[in-house]
């Protein structure tokens, strides 16, 4: 009987072993270096095609290095995979990770020494990247990754609905009052038509839209030094009151985070969105004639950008060097322009916009023009703190309670203020 078990287990293990494969890493024989890049680009998609084509191009032009792109899931899932790989002592050489994680990512000793690479390489030109990007990629002076993507929020509107309501299209001088008036005129409960949409799932998607409004109203998130909350201010009350007034008039479609707002915009049920270039492809594929404008102002026209990073991990000096080599090539202006042309993503550095070929990009993606210009309105970054996710959850609930008319702006802010201060006071 026992032998029987042994045979079965052996058979099972043998079967399992057949499926076993190489881990596609290993620092390579001789001078050739293999590195792995984890991304979340889905199929069919311009980004997936671009990363495949461009890593192949790099491998062709750099015979001593082979970069292998691998799909590692997107959003939260990618994080779990990366955390497991780090715990296993075998992280990918490069991984696409959200900027909001960088303060925590910075705590791992597994990072590649990007600071010294960049400091010893004047041709890299770190300061050419947009300030928000550098802000999110740098944690207490340590560079955790190289900018991978930058976006920002602008106003997208349905031209036809504006015309039907007898409204002039939004201008770059629009104020919150103009916006609120338009939102109300575009609202028609009988036709199930809304002036605006707001992502109300309480996630960072809810929160960062509020930060943009807070900044526009002249407020800030935290006091300088990040020891105290600063959003519980007249500016904060202003921003939330603006939201609640529109919610009370049923001018806002509250999206539960599933992205229905896009389908509704495409079927003419929503007049205006605050969104970024990532939605452009989907909006353009609909049949709505749309325009893009910078956000309306309270005191100013600030927007918010959410940059993501290519984080480089340390798998020995040879592989770290190779990873840096690739990232330097990949983010260089000419290559970045090729990426932008292929994908429609915004340029990640100023030098890209100065290349002669950039006109081609603007011609190919006319909708992106406003978002590119709007990068100049992305003046502030969210706090790069390990506790930021907790702060975000508190603010998410505060904004939800205002949108659902469950508490007044001041109540919501006071309660959030108290919670955020205790998060900031807790020893880390």
């Amino acid at each position, binding site marked *: 009987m026992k032998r029987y078990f042994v045979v079965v287990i052996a058979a099972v293990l043998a079967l399992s*072993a057949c499926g*076993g*494969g190489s881990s596609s890493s290993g620092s390579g024989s001789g001078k050739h270096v293999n590195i792995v890049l984890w991304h979340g680009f889905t199929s069919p998609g311009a980004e997936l095609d671009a990363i495949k084509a461009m890593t192949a191009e790099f491998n062709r032009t750099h015979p001593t290095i082979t970069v292998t792109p691998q799909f590692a*899931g997107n959003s939260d899932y990618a994080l779990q995979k990366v955390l497991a790989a780090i715990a296993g002592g075998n992280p990918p050489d490069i991984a696409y990770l959200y900027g909001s994680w960088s303060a925590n990512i910075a705590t791992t000793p597994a990072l590649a020494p990007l600071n010294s690479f960049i400091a010893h390489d004047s041709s890299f030109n770190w300061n050419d990247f947009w300030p928000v990007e550098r802000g999110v990629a740098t944690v207490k002076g340590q560079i955790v990754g190289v900018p991978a993507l930058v976006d920002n929020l602008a106003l997208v509107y349905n031209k036809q609905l504006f015309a039907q309501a007898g409204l002039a299209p939004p201008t770059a001088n629009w104020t919150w009052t103009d916006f609120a008036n338009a939102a109300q005129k575009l609202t028609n409960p009988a036709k199930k038509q809304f002036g605006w949409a707001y992502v109300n799932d309480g996630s960072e998607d809810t929160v960062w839209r509020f930060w943009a409004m807070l900044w526009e109203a002249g407020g800030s998130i935290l006091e300088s030094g990040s020891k105290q909350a600063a959003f519980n201010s007249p500016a904060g009350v202003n921003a939330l009151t603006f939201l609640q007034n529109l919610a009370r008039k049923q001018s806002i479609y509250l999206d539960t985070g599933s992205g229905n707002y896009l389908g509704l915009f495409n079927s003419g049920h929503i007049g205006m969105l605050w969104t970024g270039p990532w939605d452009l492809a989907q909006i353009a594929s*609909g049949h709505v004639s749309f325009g893009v404008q910078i956000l309306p102002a309270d005191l100013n026209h600030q927007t918010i950008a959410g940059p993501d990073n290519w984080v480089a991990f340390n798998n020995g000096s040879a592989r770290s060097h190779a990873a840096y080599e690739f990232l330097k090539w990949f983010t260089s202006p000419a290559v970045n322009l090729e990426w932008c042309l292929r994908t429609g993503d915004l340029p990640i550095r100023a030098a890209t916009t100065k290349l002669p070929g950039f006109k081609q990009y603007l011609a190919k993606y006319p909708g992106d023009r406003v978002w590119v210009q709007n990068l100049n309105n992305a003046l502030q970054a969210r706090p790069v703190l390990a506790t930021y996710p907790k702060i975000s959850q508190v603010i998410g609930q505060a904004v939800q309670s205002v949108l659902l008319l469950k508490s007044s702006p001041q109540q919501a802010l006071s309660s959030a203020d108290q919670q955020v201060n205790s998060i900031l006071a807790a020893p880390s």
Partner: protein
Amino acid sequence: MATGQTAQAEPLFRLTVPPEKPRRRLPFSPWHLFLMPVAAVMLVPLLWMVIVSLETASQAQRFPPVLFPHSFHVQSYVDAWNAAPFAHYFLNSAIYSLSTVAGQLLFCSLAAYAFARIRFFGREVLFVVLLATLMVPFQVLLIPTFLIVKKLGMVDSVGGLIVPNLCSAFGIFLLRQFFRTLPIELEEAARIDGASRLAILFKIVLPLSLPALATLGIIQFLWSWNDFLWPLVIINTDTHAPIQLGLSTLQGGHFMEWNVLMAGTVMSQIPILLAFFFAQRWFIQSLAYTGIKQ
């Protein structure tokens, strides 16, 4: 009892209805009136997915959804199939699912039989310990399980998918409950005739337990087939990915072609639905056995 042989798959309750009651019957069983609407409610998502998968990209991303498109397009199925190496995904999922089903049926049967019928030292405690492994959310076990599979050298392989799922406390508990309902007389008679425990399990208990085994088999098949998070964490190479991980490559963070995603999803679910449809014969089969030899 003689009726055992004629019973076949006869329903319980028809038998209990006195036979002399054939007056004014509906032309169909009244159960249809109950089961029809239930089935309709249960089928809503599948129907919706099929409809979306047959729409064009711009129809599919409208909200509220277009429920009655003027024409149907099978193009999304072609697109989905071409967007990713689906043949690999299906093959990997088939290996993954069938291996874990085989493992679960074997290992869980053995253990469940011991827990149901054999008295040995520590049985009750051991059972609770095994059951306790179900009480910890997988979210916190993901990384340590990854570390163990890595120690075994099975990261990025189909074997790494299979090994942690060859046995489960769920399967042991399920089968134990069923084994304990079987009449013990047959087993006792076989014991007196000198049959070994193993022979009793394979020749008497398992043949009587086909519905339970089919249930465990289909559930395990379903779980491995639909497994996503574990494959995501241990598989790196696209051609080693099972179906759900493969499907997730169609599920973009921002831009999603709903019709293509739904076409892929429908394709991925057909094997489970077929497996269930055909496994039904085993769910019902052993009815005829149980009445005999009382």
